[in-house]
């Protein structure tokens, strides 16, 4: 343009922005928005602060006065009284220092602690490929072998029976593999019957011969030495692992359109879910021997395990049923369209997907199971929550120690369950994205 007038004032650069009013910035703003947004909110905040104050003033001194070095509760109390004045209360962690191993391992022989530790680390390693799909698939082979390895390491004794069980599975697998070409039904029947025959008739003599030829044994540990978290994890993890196959079968049975099979599955699931676990534990301890052939007798941990497995199977079945129901109808139709028969369709198409979306539910079931293992104390087993502390309190030195075991055991339960539930939530979010 031709106007040569220059503007009286042209700003060349931006003014620095002014500070927002104090009520709209920094801490004050945050406080106003998050804590004192309204009078009701302010009341809530103040009462929360009061609750926190109460909790801290009650518990902090108790923790601050902790004693780690003493030989008895009485000694603890003298130390606390000496340091903090008469009437002060404090935690006596000295008990843990002396007895922590019993909370963790029960009465497992101390020189063999490496075995449960190895089993626990192995558990993490075996579960990892299932939980984190990024890991190499070959690790699944270890997961398959792990249960038997764990049984052998925990209970010790000769390795041959365990190897025989594995061999049975091998025979079943081979039967399935080779007879499948002849007839798939024959293959399935053979895969079930052959291992059973093998276990019933061949294992005994074979075991005798092999054990004499190559004694492959580590020191056996009897079930009654199990206690504390070792017991809880053994029962919880064992129950879940064993209940998975049964749960899958029950879930398929419940989804089936064959009336008899469906009603059998429904009856089993509803019965187990309808009664408290504690009554099932009483069945394990009082009634199971009635239901088995006269003279059969095996130890209480195994009996509890059987009932816990049935219990978990009913819950797992419901979780997997949810997974099956969540699969789009098209998946079933696609399998049919490909001409796959029922078992092939389940094995290749339906179950892999249904199981994958069921994992969060399975983890939650496991958390519930793990918490419920504490009930075994009522059939005379030494669980970490009541059995072991009661036993420790039977000692003259630690009579009357209540809160410390609660805090310690509660903290361990919390850490384990919290991390597992967080994992389940993470997985749920991830799976949700996959399906969008």
């Amino acid at each position: 343009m031709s106007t040569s007038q220059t503007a009286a004032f042209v700003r060349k650069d931006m003014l620095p922005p002014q500070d927002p009013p104090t009520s709209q910035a920094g801490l004050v703003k945050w406080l106003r928005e998050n804590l004192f947004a309204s009078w009701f909110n302010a009341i809530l905040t103040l009462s929360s602060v009061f609750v926190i104050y109460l909790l801290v003033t009650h518990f902090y001194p108790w923790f601050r006065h902790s004693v780690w070095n003493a030989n008895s509760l009485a000694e603890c109390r003298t130390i606390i009284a000496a340091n903090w004045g008469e009437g002060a209360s404090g935690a006596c962690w000295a008990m843990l220092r002396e007895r922590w191993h019993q909370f963790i391992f029960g009465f497992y022989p101390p020189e063999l602690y490496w075995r449960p530790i190895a089993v626990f680390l192995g558990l993490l390693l075996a579960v990892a490929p299932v939980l984190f799909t990024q890991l190499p698939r070959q690790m699944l082979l270890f997961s398959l072998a792990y249960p038997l390895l764990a049984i052998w390491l925990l209970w010790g004794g000769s390795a041959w029976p365990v190897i025989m069980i594995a061999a049975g599975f091998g025979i079943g697998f081979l039967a399935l593999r080779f007879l499948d070409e002849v007839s798939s039904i024959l293959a399935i029947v053979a895969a079930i019957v052959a291992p059973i025959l093998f276990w019933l008739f061949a294992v005994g003599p074979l075991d005798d011969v092999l054990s004499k030829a190559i004694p492959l044994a580590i020191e056996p540990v009897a079930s009654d030495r199990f206690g504390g978290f070792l017991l809880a994890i053994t029962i919880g993890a064992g129950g879940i692992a064993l209940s998975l196959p049964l749960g899958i079968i029950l879930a398929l049975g419940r989804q089936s359109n064959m009336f008899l099979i469906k009603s059998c599955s429904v009856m089993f699931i509803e019965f187990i879910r309808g009664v408290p676990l504690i009554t099932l534990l009483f069945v394990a301890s009082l009634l199971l021997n009635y239901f088995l052939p006269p003279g059969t007798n095996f130890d209480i941990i195994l009996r509890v395990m059987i009932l816990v497995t049935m219990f978990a199977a009913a819950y797992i079945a419901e979780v997997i049923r949810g997974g099956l129901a969540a699969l789009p109808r098209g998946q079933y139709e696609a399998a049919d369209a490909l001409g796959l028969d029922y078992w092939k369709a389940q094995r290749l198409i339906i179950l892999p997907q249904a199981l994958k979306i069921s994992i969060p539910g399975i983890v939650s079931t496991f958390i519930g199971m793990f918490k419920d293992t504490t009930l075994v104390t009522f059939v005379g087993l030494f669980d970490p929550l009541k059995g072991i502390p009661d036993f420790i309190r039977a000692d003259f030195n630690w009579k009357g120690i209540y809160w410390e075991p609660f805090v310690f055991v509660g903290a361990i339960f919390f850490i384990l369950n919290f991390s597992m539930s967080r994992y389940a939530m993470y997985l749920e979010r991830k799976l949700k994205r996959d399906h969008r």
Partner: protein
Amino acid sequence: MKKSVLLGTLAVAAVSAGVAAAGTLDDVKARGELNCGVNTGLVGFAAPDANGNWSGFDVAVCKAVAAAVLGDPSKVKYVPTTGQTRFTALASGEVDMLSRNSTWTFSRDTDLKLDFVGVNYYDGQGFMVRKDLGVTSAKELDGASVCIQTGTTTELNLADFFKANNMTYQPITIDSNAEGEQQYLAGACDAYTTDISGLAATRASYADPENHIILPEVISKEPLGPAVRHGDSQWGDVVRWTLNALIAAEEYGVTSANVDELAKGTENPEINRLLGVEGELGKMTGLDNDWAVRAIKASGNYGEIFAATIGEATPIALARGLNAQWTQGGLLYAPPFR
């Protein structure tokens, strides 16, 4: 493939399951281990130590039987049983014998299909109260809260006692001795009732035993003794006579210290028969002739066991009282060994 996992475990279970033969004695010998049902933890009678090794008055009976039958007092698997599970554990064959302060009663001996083989402790039910309550007799407990363990004869006795004396009470039921102590110490109940020996054991473990008193009334007879399954008299004989051997040994002055010496032969024919120097008593029960020697060596004779576990020198400090030998004015009277 995974579906057979369950079957696999069951197979293992079946393999590890011992199938009972005709007699318990043969079973125990074949197994090489005695399954003995004990209390889940009652100091002095049966309690595991920090390493899980069991000891106590009832445990000593298990050890003696194991020594007599298997020759080794350590060949015992202790099965902790609660008041709830003990008789079923025995009936189902989970344990071979029960040595767990259980009262010998008519209905248990007949209806529950147990055989009590003798009495190792004559007890009675009593009450413990705090001294500052100012109560000196159980008759003054009208309206009191009483802590009581479920599943025992004590709750029936308690109901009968209060009824007979026209008094009321508030039962506070508890599951285990440990819990009873907690409730009583916290003052949740005015009185704690159980067998007097149990009360003494409990009181002994308190920091201030002098502040608690056991009331003089004994409201019931509680003969405590080991029990076996009904219908296997051979095994019943073994346990019965092992217990009698311990009692007789005290009467004759046979102790764990001098038993080896005496087993070489003595002037006293009773001792000779007991220790297998004379006669074939052991053979008659299906054991060998040294059985009593081994049983006594396991933890001593009855008197030694008593003194070591619950006697006056221990914190539990029970006097012999009714449990003295008949020669000392007590009730212990072993039938003759001949």
